[in-house]
């Protein structure tokens, strides 16, 4: 694949330019989240990342360069880890646009961004937040609880090595495969297959998180007809982890309808205080 690029590429004309491009792209794309806005999210920095490459393709201070920069002011939002692929792809399309002139459909550059950011965000978030982070935390937390250096170190390594590899090779892949391939891949549904598989893993992990890390137990107990009545004992007989599960599902049902997480947070704080003052929770473990 690289041989092909060297033969026909008007942008990455030689090995040293190729090195320069991938390295520069890698260091610049890390800044993608600085600074997001409500209206355009990552768009401004997206164009900032591509700036030196657009400059090289179209020439400094040329109309083509400024048109390209303006083109990339369109709304963009995806998992930052997945963005380098899109950036690589976009750079190769900009090059094509410059080479072919009018015969190239410029709108396809924005179109492919818009088409990719949604599926990529779904894929990236489930890989990074649903799977990678949880696995890294699960391994590291035991060491951290003992105050050992190994804990945070392991977390950072397990979490970031795949994170950085995906960014580095994502950019290379994006530049080399070309938009026809991406369009074809999207059409034949391979993204859907990967996203679905990762969603399965992600959903299992958050189901496990619900049981493991949401702590919601009652400590209410009373003497009834000469017998000790323990509320939590009854609940555990119905279903272990019933309350955490119910809490997560309630939050989920509400947040899916109305995206107001702060309200939910305040509601939980109030609920916890009220239940504790009533003596249902927060007493000595029953």
């Amino acid at each position, binding site marked *: 694949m690289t041989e092909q690029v060297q033969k026909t590429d008007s942008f990455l004309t030689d090995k040293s330019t190729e090195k320069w491009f991938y390295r520069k792209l890698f260091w610049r794309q890390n800044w993608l989240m600085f600074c997001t806005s409500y209206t355009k999210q990552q768009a401004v920095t997206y164009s*900032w990342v591509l700036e030196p490459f657009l400059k090289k393709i179209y020439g400094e201070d040329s109309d083509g360069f*400024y048109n390209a920069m303006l083109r990339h002011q369109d709304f963009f939002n995806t998992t930052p880890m997945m963005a380098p692929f899109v950036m690589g792809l976009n750079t190769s399309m900009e090059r094509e646009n410059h080479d072919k002139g009018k015969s190239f459909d410029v709108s396809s550059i924005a179109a492919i961004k818009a088409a990719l950011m949604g599926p990529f965000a779904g894929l990236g978030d489930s890989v990074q937040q649903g799977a990678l982070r949880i696995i890294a935390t699960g391994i590291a937390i035991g060491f951290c609880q003992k105050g050992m250096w190994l804990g945070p170190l392991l977390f950072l390594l397990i979490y970031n090595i795949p994170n950085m590899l995906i960014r580095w090779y994502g950019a290379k892949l994006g530049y080399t495969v070309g938009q026809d391939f991406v369009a074809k891949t999207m059409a*034949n549904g391979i993204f859907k297959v990967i996203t679905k598989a990762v969603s399965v893993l992600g959903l299992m992990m958050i189901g496990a998180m619900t*049981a493991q890390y949401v702590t919601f137990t009652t400590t209410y107990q009373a003497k009834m007809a000469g017998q000790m009545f323990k509320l939590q004992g009854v609940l555990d007989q119905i279903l272990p982890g019933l309350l955490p599960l119910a809490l997560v599902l309630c939050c989920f049902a509400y947040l899916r309808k109305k995206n107001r997480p702060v309200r939910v947070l305040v509601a939980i704080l109030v609920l916890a205080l009220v239940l*504790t003052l009533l003596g249902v929770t927060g007493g000595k473990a029953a």
Partner: protein
Amino acid sequence: MLVNALLVGLALTIQKWGDWYGSLGFNRPMVAGTIVGILLGHPSEGIMIGAALELVYLGSISLGGVMPQDFGLGSIFGTAFGILLSSKTSVAIALSLPISMLGTLVYQLFKIWATALVPRFEAHLKAHNIKAFNRLWQIQRGVYLLMWFTLGFVGIMAGTNAIKALVAAIPQPIMNGLTVAAGMLPAVGIALLMITLWDKKLAPWFFLGFGIVAFFKGTMIEVAFIGICIAVLVAVGDLANRHNNNNATPAATASSSDSKVEEDFFND
């Protein structure tokens, strides 16, 4: 106090930088606690408080700019006060909760400013002034980092004595209530994560993951192990189905060339 305040300001800046730069994961309480601990000279306390905070915020994530709690900020201050007032971990947790919720306000204010700047970026490009565009971008980034430094500095300078008095004044039942809330709050982050992954047809997998831990006391690593196996099975099954469907439709292109392209996609 002055030195400590400067150091916490620095810790907050580093944490906010590594939260966004390459999504290095510095916002996780484990890492944030470590950073504060190192800078304040109590690394192992920092790591331990960070671990306790990590459990509280494990379900909390920031996705697509939606950040219900600024748990990174909460962890920095929680750990810092925990170390500086040499108080219990539960106090650090209780302090970090309201701070993390207030922290989102600070960030929202900044984001409103960043949003107001968007038309100016565009205007600079329309005026063919790339230098002004770059300058504005650098200013934006600088303000973002400086804002957190200032917040960390002022928070410790102005807050330490007040927090000390406050912690002493909080009645025990309220403290218990906050501890209960700390256990319940991960539900919000988990629910937010669920929204991004949810598909009615996939719902059973969520309950399977729940069941493995709730009924069989499985660990996260065990669930991950089983989960990866299942994910691969699902993907392989779907790929096989897709090929069958492709072959069944007359319009489908030769599937052999298709699979070659896929291999390229994965191998590269």
